């Protein structure tokens, strides 16, 4: 089927099978590989994207569900060549090690700060508890999100 949706602010029209997973559509068909897959079953959060501004797991979504929606991936966060404040804070606070969870983690953080501009540490911990990170122990990620919240506020 043909579906059309907005991808990182750009209208896209693409021919695809309706049951194609969104993550495959992104990575394999559209060639944007910033969105990662860590489990394929909604347990790790590495594939988190924003659909109409709300965080969703692209490994659990099918292409047909994108029709008429707006999807933001990690590639869509950079504006005019500048990192999003959350991305900047991840870099400066040392929240990135292997980095494979980072895109999903950043998307979850962006989603949180849209809903709750000044979250406490526990609220941040809860908000990213669906995003697994095997390297950092999370502390610097929490620091980064807290700092980005202050910057955005």
């Amino acid at each position, binding site marked *: 089927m043909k579906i059309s949706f907005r991808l990182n602010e750009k209208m896209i029209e693409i021919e695809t099978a309706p049951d194609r997973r969104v993550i495959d559509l992104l*990575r*394999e068909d559209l*060639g*944007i*590989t*910033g*969105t*990662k*897959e*860590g*489990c*394929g*079953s909604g*347990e*790790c959060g*590495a594939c988190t994207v924003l659909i109409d501004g709300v965080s969703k797991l692209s490994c659990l979504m099918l292409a047909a569900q994108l029709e008429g929606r707006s999807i933001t*991936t*990690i*590639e869509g*966060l*950079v504006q005019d060549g500048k*990192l999003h404040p959350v*991305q900047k804070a*991840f*870099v*400066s606070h*040392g*929240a*990135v*090690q*292997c*980095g*494979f*969870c*980072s*895109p999903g983690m*950043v998307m979850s953080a962006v989603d949180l700060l849209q809903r709750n501009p000044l979250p406490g*540490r*526990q609220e*941040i*911990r*809860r908000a*990213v*508890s*669906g*995003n*697994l*990170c*095997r*390297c*950092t*122990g*999370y*502390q*610097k*990620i*929490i620091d980064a999100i807290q700092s980005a919240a202050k910057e955005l506020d």
Partner: protein
Amino acid sequence: MTEALAPIGTVLTRSDASAKVQGCEKYAADYYPQGMLWAGVKRSAYAHAKILRIETSKAVEVTGVAAVLTSGDIRGSNRVGVPEMDQPVLADDKVRCKGDPVVLVLAENKKALELALEKIEIDYEVLPAVFDPREALKPDAPLLYEQRPGKNLLLSGTLERGNGAASLKDCKFVVEGRFKLPWQEHAYLETEAGVAGINSEGILEITASTQTPFRDRNELSHALGLPADKIRVTAPYLGGAFGGKDGITVQGLLGLGAMHSGDRPVKMWTSREESFLSSTKRHPAELHYRLGCTQDGILLAMTCEVVLDTGAYAALGGAVLAMVLEHAAGVYRIPNVFIEGFCVYTNNSVASAFRGFGAPQGLAGIEQMIDLLADEAGIDALKFRLKNAVNRGDTTGSGVLMSNSTGIISCLKKVQRHPLWINRQDWVNNAPAFKKRGVGTAAGMQGTGYGPVILDIANAKTELLPDGRFRIYSGVADMGQGNNPTNIHIAGEILNQAPKDFELLQPDTGSCLPSGSSSASRTTFSFGNALIGACKNLKERILTRACNLMMGAYFENLLLARGKVLDMTSGREISLQAIASSMTEQERISIFSYIAPAAKHPESVNSEIRFLGFPHRIFSFACHLALVEIDELSGEIEVCDYLACTDAGRILNPQIYEQQIHGGIVQGMGYVLWEDFRIHNGDVLCRNLATYILPTAVDIPDLQSLAVETEETGPFGMKGVGEIGINLPYPAISNAVAQALGRRIYEGPLTAERVLKCLNSNPTGGKSED
């Protein structure tokens, strides 16, 4: 960040972070070469079986299938593994565990691949299997390798000091403990992945998520029957590894596929389930200790028996056993010791390297024993450790001479002075209703590098580029620990250039130089030292050439500054670009080899144990403190506070240092509290992240990290910090839990279920049980 120089010892934000956080860093899993085929394997359905017949014709007929390959298609030895080459790329005569790869399929898309894999028929003759390492050592046990003289015993070894076990009778206090430690799965976020193809010059090119690109090339040459110079392996940044990619994962399958793909590139990326099924794990261990001390709490005697289940293939199992033995007596002077270890083949999943590499198992044992004995002797747990801990020049109970920087006593004292320790009793006494609180501590070390026999060599290569910038050819893969950003930090310090003046080439057997594995807390220690040498030579060459070009300038008056050389007396300058353009390529490239110091052990030790790494020379040290609260109704353990005091030498970059400490601690918390990787009769029962529980952001407290910076011979005085953090959460938290419960749980992980069982079996609390 500005482009200012960040001196060693200060925070330099990681040069890899920006690309990673934008999603534009390409991992092995992110390569989708034009015209590629998907590769996948049919894995064994049995833990131990003879392969009688493989029927592939129905699979070949599936639309979109390009090739169906079996061991018969392999030209070489079809064996990989280090140091023993015993693991087939594709099983030939028999399978030795569930998950063994048997048939490789190449297909246009994942659907065709899946369908073809289903249509492969394999006839097996099921053989008796063995799943318990003690059973596997019995004379009538089924044999995994019929021809092996040692039968199912991969390796055994003993360490003896003084009168060994006989001295236990001279002790005033003796305690005994039997510990059962679980499997642990690495669960890196990027599962095994890579792409391969044959280029126009006939070279097999493999890009894979690997800690060991150079070793892989050698093993692939052997297994696939290609000369090593016809194979090129590149290792982009890894999406985590922790030892799980210390060796071949999909590389053999990719290479084989590319050799039979009709010149098309091949990609393989395991699903999470396949990764859990086929990847290596941390060795489950059984430890049986007796430990005794004098009236005054001076350790006198210890015995320890270790049994490791290494699963179906050797992998690095022998070397892990050597590390367990080396760390089994911890950081203590114990004059009379008998330690005996067995690493045993079974038909379970393969166990191999995992951060800590055996040290976490040894320390989980000895550090719980120390608490049991301190309790028995009526001495405070930290005082007891301080009485017995090694100084530089002392020998540990395992017979390891502490010849180099030894900061364990400073670590212990720092924890002893910390408010969390000083105020511990108040905190315990203030437990809310239905909660029990406990405070536990543990101390330990981590050996660095390869040990006395296998040289730990790194070969650094760096280049002054024609435009006056510099290139570093990394020889060691970066699995996330940040050794490659650190290389830029180090080279920037020596060459006095800003991070932006460098480009870094990820390990590539085609252009970089072999520098060993990304493992053993050695990457920055060894490669960093080599890089310092290469940069110093290059600097001298640049300044010498500047003398040639700036007539009348003297070497000692020249300063290598950012992008230029400055004559401090005359104020004249010459750009690095001008200097570079006066050089041949050969002159612009600098190479330096470094060999890490190794111990020359005076006592007689089993030569195989020595070969596999015993003993080490350089150690990092730490003391950890855990405060836990147990919910009496649910059995859940909450770690409320956690403190680590670490001696990993001088700190090059406080941010990366903390990253390693935090990450190690949390992985260690997973090991002791939640990560229950279940394998029953060879069947992997944990197949996803819903049943294998990793720590999440809500499960852990903010961690505190203190440093003791002894000076060592790594770059700028550093020691390895990659592993030491994971070694102590197991015993520190176990000790805290034992204090809270009034008794000890000897089998890990300490799940809520086990805690509840313990609480219910003895609701009033009481002394420890066995």
